[in-house]
């Protein structure tokens, strides 16, 4: 299946939406979602870098002889990146829980004791 440059556009859009959430959303949880969106965009880009039109999944045991495969390295990188993303998201959400406990709000504009 020839997908053209469509996934790259989606990846760029995901990054832009994520940045929009980080720039204009006040809620801490929504900012974490923004980070996740940027991450998803980058991951999608990374997978697309190794994609070949019509390629099979890079699993040697399933492929037919002579069939061309997509590049496995970016997929391995993406998996690593997803694992790291899980850890960062968990940490960010934990911080959000404790920030809410201390400040009683998730509004980022009210959480500014550290300034100046």
């Amino acid at each position, binding site marked *: 299946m020839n997908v053209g440059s469509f996934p790259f556009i989606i990846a760029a859009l995901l990054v832009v939406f994520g940045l929009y959430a980080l720039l204009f959303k006040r809620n801490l949880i929504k900012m974490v979602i923004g980070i996740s969106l940027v991450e998803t965009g980058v991951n999608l880009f990374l997978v697309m870098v190794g994609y070949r039109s019509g390629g099979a999944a890079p699993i*040697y*045991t*399933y492929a*037919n002889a002579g069939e061309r495969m997509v590049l496995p390295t970016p997929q391995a990188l993406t*998996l690593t990146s997803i694992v790291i993303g899980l850890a960062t998201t*968990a940490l960010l959400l*934990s911080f959000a*829980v404790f920030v*809410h*406990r201390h400040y009683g709000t998730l509004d980022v504009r009210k959480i500014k004791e550290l300034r100046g």
Partner: protein
Amino acid sequence: MNQDGMSIIVRTVTRFVYGLVLVFGFYVIMHGHLTPGGGFQGGAVVASAFALLLVAFGAAGVKGRLSKHLLQSLEEIGALAFLGLAFAGIGTAFFYNLLANSGSLFGASVALGPNAGFLNTGGLVPLMNWAVGLKVMTGIASIVIVMLVGARKEETE
């Protein structure tokens, strides 16, 4: 979601599905070197079974059966096992795959060309998958427990 978990329907279904999820998770870990998946993915599946238990039976229902300390200890042991396997090949290089093609455990040589895949290949890789799987399943489970307990404390205060 209250302290006692959810309705009897959810609990019954959980009892039924729980074992299937566990088996599927361990399958994914075990075949990590042959099929998509591996330690992290399988571990995450197993941890989702723990999360299912927590959701269905509530924190009170699971308390005492899933000890946080036990989970954390197992997590460290998994990580140490992974590192130990990485150290095993230090005679040649760190992370050197000592067992691959050696004829011993997981040491069968890989057939050339497309094949169905044999479990007894991969050398240290399947063992590392198990170590990572142990770490991930216990790690994510303890994260879920900590977050649940943390959220609960906030409700009572």
